[in-house]
């Protein structure tokens, strides 16, 4: 199966600290993959490299056929790589609809003159964008908050809105940073169903960073484990569950055991 996104031999160095060490990570088309590891393993750093926020010290990122390592973040978003944030970073002072419309910025065409004159073309574009935004909001389950300021939404709805906003980018790859943080068991279940439905209905691949093992095991087709900046395991949920190195990374070695 072809890979929609490939990260090849990525290393990230901050000063004297090697946060990510020679990690290769591929996301196949229409798949759901996860990246897990103990705190400080370098997951978020690696994640930020994938989305263009950090530039790697070595290695390259390939999207489809194109190398995109040097692209600025907004260009990476424009070509179809969307992300959510660990701490929700919605535009709280804009309505849910406006949040999505901002994400559509790069796909809309109206320029300054067209906007000022409100040409028929611009008005049509806006109408269509609003309709599309509504469709995505409905799909994500926050359709009734269209004109509500994002900061007034409940926590769960804000998370949903963040995903909706990412979907407004019409992405081929959706990268979710701890999407179920703060959710209870029921909400996590709803989220699992949502992601499955998403991948089934659209031409999109999903990658998660997650700490909730139930969600990871339920959703992932493949799990990659990072520890101290290095990839220590990669495989199906069952393989990872029983991998001794993974267990050691999370729980440490029993006292007295030989290395």
């Amino acid at each position: 199966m072809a890979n929609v996104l490939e990260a090849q031999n990525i290393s990230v160095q901050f000063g004297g600290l090697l946060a990510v060490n020679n990690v290769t990570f591929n996301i196949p088309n229409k798949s759901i993959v996860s990246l897990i590891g103990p705190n400080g393993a370098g997951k978020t750093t690696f994640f930020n490299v994938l989305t263009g926020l950090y530039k790697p010290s070595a290695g390259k990122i390939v999207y489809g056929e194109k190398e995109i390592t040097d692209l600025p973040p907004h260009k990476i978003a424009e070509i179809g790589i969307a992300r959510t944030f660990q701490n929700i970073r919605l535009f709280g002072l804009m309505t849910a609809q406006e949040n999505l419309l901002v994400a559509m910025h790069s796909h809309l065409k109206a320029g300054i003159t067209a906007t000022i004159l409100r040409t028929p073309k611009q008005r049509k574009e806006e109408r269509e964008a609003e309709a599309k935004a509504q469709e995505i909001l409905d799909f994500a389950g926050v359709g009734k908050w269209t004109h509500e300021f994002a900061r007034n939404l409940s926590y769960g709805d804000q998370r949903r809105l963040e995903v909706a906003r990412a979907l407004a980018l019409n992405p081929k790859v959706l990268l979710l940073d701890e999407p179920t943080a703060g959710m209870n068991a029921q909400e996590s279940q709803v989220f699992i169903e949502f992601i499955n439905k998403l991948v089934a209905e659209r031409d999109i691949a999903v990658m998660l960073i997650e700490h909730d093992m139930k969600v990871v095991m339920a959703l992932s087709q493949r799990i990659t484990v990072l520890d101290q900046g290095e990839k220590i395991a990669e495989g199906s949920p069952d393989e990872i569950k029983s991998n001794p190195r993974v267990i050691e990374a999370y729980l440490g070695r029993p006292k007295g055991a030989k290395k």
Partner: protein
Amino acid sequence: MNKGNGVTLAKVVEAKKFSGTPGQIRQQRIERGGAIGISALFAVWMLVNLIKAPEQFAQVAISGLRNGLIYALIALGYTLVYGIIELINFAHGDLFMLSAVFSSFFITYWMGAEESNGYGWFTFGLCLIAVMVFGAVVNVLIERLAYRRLRHAPRLAPLITAVGMSFLLNFIGLKWNGSTPRQWPTVIPSGDIYIGEIRISMITIWLFLVGFPLLLALNYLVTNTKQGKAMRATSQDRDASTLMGINVNKTIAFTFALGGAMAGAAGLLYQQSIGTTSYNLGFQLGLIAFTSAVLGGIGNLWGAVVGGLLIGLIQGLNDGLPFAFGQAWSQSVVFTILIIILVFKPAGLLGKAVTEKV
């Protein structure tokens, strides 16, 4: 390597030579090229002037360095405050102006010292203490009344307040000093010494004799005392400092006090060496001093000193040398330097670039 409960320490490796992405490499090359190009131009300019007019060169260099000392003292205030709360205290230059006015009133009116004699020098010393206290108190007050409330507000708010405060101090200066510049007698001995053809005035010597110990004292305070350490800790990580038992409010107030004292001293030195005060002094010199702080590396104390001396030197050379833009363009030259540094190397000469963590 030790592993705690789920918390691991990442490996610290000897710096492997990572060159970065092609785009980054290109960017670095451009920056380095620009830096080399500008330095080369600068060196050529200095050389040309040095060859064409060596005594003049030395002369303006010395007077430039003298101004640079004053800039350095003011710049310290900017860099101290920026280092600890990441705020450009626009009002700092005007504090310097008020200190100059204060000094003029203190020495000439209140103490009546107008000549260079024992009484005059005694008054100078007394004023030095008084004006430093004045500067410290005013600065602490400003922080307490205006900036403290806005410490957690979005960036725009304290910046705008600082600008407003600058105007306020300007107004006080306008009322205190009057709208026209005023001349004052000085208690610094007149007279010059000569090294070859080069004339060094007693004023220059006096300024360095007073200024340098001040810088050394400040350095000692910041590096060796408990308060100084608290300052450095707070500037690196405010929350962690609180957890370590540091009283952040007191520390920030202390920082403002130090910065204000430096501005006070600068005001006295300026007033007694140049001999004039005007209400818009703060704006002109404030920006030059801030450029110095940025040139040296904002947040870095020695950077402020180096930056101040360097800017003073450049300005002196520009104003006095035959192959230069001349005094009319003095402000523009300094601002152009500011812009160039901020665009190409915001960390300055001695500073470190910081990346934002997401």
